[in-house]
């Protein structure tokens, strides 16, 4: 059985892992490589590294840490942040990243998704979507440049339409960041994730809102997502990955069990 994935997300700024509340007021959580190693050995199924400043201040991802991570990590990892061309994506994949995640640049230039798909294959292309529930319009709206509170912009896309558009263009996976929930640890946005799930035929990763073990159980069992991404609950030691995976397995969610070598 394909296991559901637990994915710690490490927001990176200037080579350090940081975490903000609703995308603002970032605190430094620690150095990137030891944290990556720690999560991999604790049973994380995959890691995501977001260079949160890259898109908003027109830099590309600082590439040196990608190879440092590739050297110590033996599970898949994805790199996001300011990747705006096929060439930049190629550099990051060549340094050992398994996937690249595109968010704001895909909104600015949707054709980039097609180009990345044709060059590297669908399996490498993750589309991150920052989605905000607008109480006035009662719609889910897509935002860009969310790494910098002063530059964050609403786009003309409604979330469900953008989810369909990126799949047509060749996305291999979608990470849905539910902005209303981000960093506040009140639970994943099950209603929104269920709605997105209905129009999403590629793997869907839930992001934003994890605060306790039951939040993970809800998102897998109710929204049928393929993976759950979380940051602060892991960085702040609120949840231990091993205990989380054990609790989820007991709740009927398929979890990867550790490899134990057999003696021959």
């Amino acid at each position: 059985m394909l296991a559901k994935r637990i994915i710690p997300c490490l927001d990176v700024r200037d080579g350090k892992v940081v975490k903000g509340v609703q995308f603002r007021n970032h605190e430094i959580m620690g150095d990137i490589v030891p944290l990556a190693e720690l999560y991999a050995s604790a049973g994380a199924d995959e890691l995501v590294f977001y260079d949160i400043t890259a898109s908003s201040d027109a830099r590309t991802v600082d590439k040196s840490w990608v190879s440092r991570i590739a050297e110590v990590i033996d599970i898949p990892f994805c790199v996001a942040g300011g990747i705006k061309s096929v060439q930049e994506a190629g550099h990051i994949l060549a340094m050992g990243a398994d996937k690249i995640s595109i968010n704001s640049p895909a909104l600015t230039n949707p054709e980039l998704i097609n180009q990345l798909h044709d060059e590297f294959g669908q399996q490498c292309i993750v589309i991150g979507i920052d989605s905000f529930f607008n109480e006035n319009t009662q719609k889910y709206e897509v935002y860009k440049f969310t790494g910098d509170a002063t530059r964050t912009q609403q786009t003309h896309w409604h979330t469900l339409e953008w989810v369909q558009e990126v799949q047509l263009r060749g996305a291999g996976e979608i990470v849905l960041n539910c902005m209303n929930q981000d960093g506040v640890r009140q639970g994943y946005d099950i209603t929104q994730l269920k709605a997105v799930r209905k129009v999403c035929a590629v793997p869907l990763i839930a992001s934003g809102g994890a605060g306790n073990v039951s939040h993970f159980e809800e998102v897998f069992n109710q929204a049928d997502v393929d993976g759950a991404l979380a940051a602060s609950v892991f960085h702040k030691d609120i949840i231990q990955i091993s205990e989380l995976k054990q609790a989820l397995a007991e709740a009927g969610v398929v979890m990867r069990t550790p490899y134990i070598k057999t003696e021959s």
Partner: protein
Amino acid sequence: MQQKVVIINTGCANISSVRIALERLGSSVLVTDDANLIQRADKVLLPGVGSAGAAMRSIGQKDLIHTVQQLSQPVLGVCLGMQLMVEHSHESKTGSVACLNLIPGEVVRMQVNEQRLPHMGWNTVSTAASNALFQGIPDKTYFYFVHSFCVQLSSFTVACCEYARPFSAALMKDNFYGVQFHPERSGEAGAQLLRNFLTL
């Protein structure tokens, strides 16, 4: 004397992670598209990420098709590298791409009903315990997969995986081995498989 491990430079994207995984096991690894160096290696890896058409074009342009077909030392194809080992692949806009024809079989798009494609994540692999590649790896061990095409089960299947339907997780014929999953991204289990390959 340390053995010569060569990764064929197919021009595909996951070469670094395969190289690093082998280096972690203490191997010294050469990434090359030089036919002489490939022929003289003790172990050869054929990595691959991307599409079969692009990869076969790249191998063809480097004039390496015949070189790979003539190898007699252990060769391990990884993911797309495994798919390139069979006769042909349907992963093509024009219908079918001729592959390296090292192992009978063909690559087809996965039929998954309501489930998602790509097949992405950790899935259990059922192994034939007697196969040297899976020495020390228990049945139902999790490996990391990411693909939308697969090779169906055949008499050359040495490990199988199931996603809506069963498919070949590993193939073997003579000195040619292939794994659909990514051992370089499959933690300790993947490291054990690579160690097994290096000691063949």
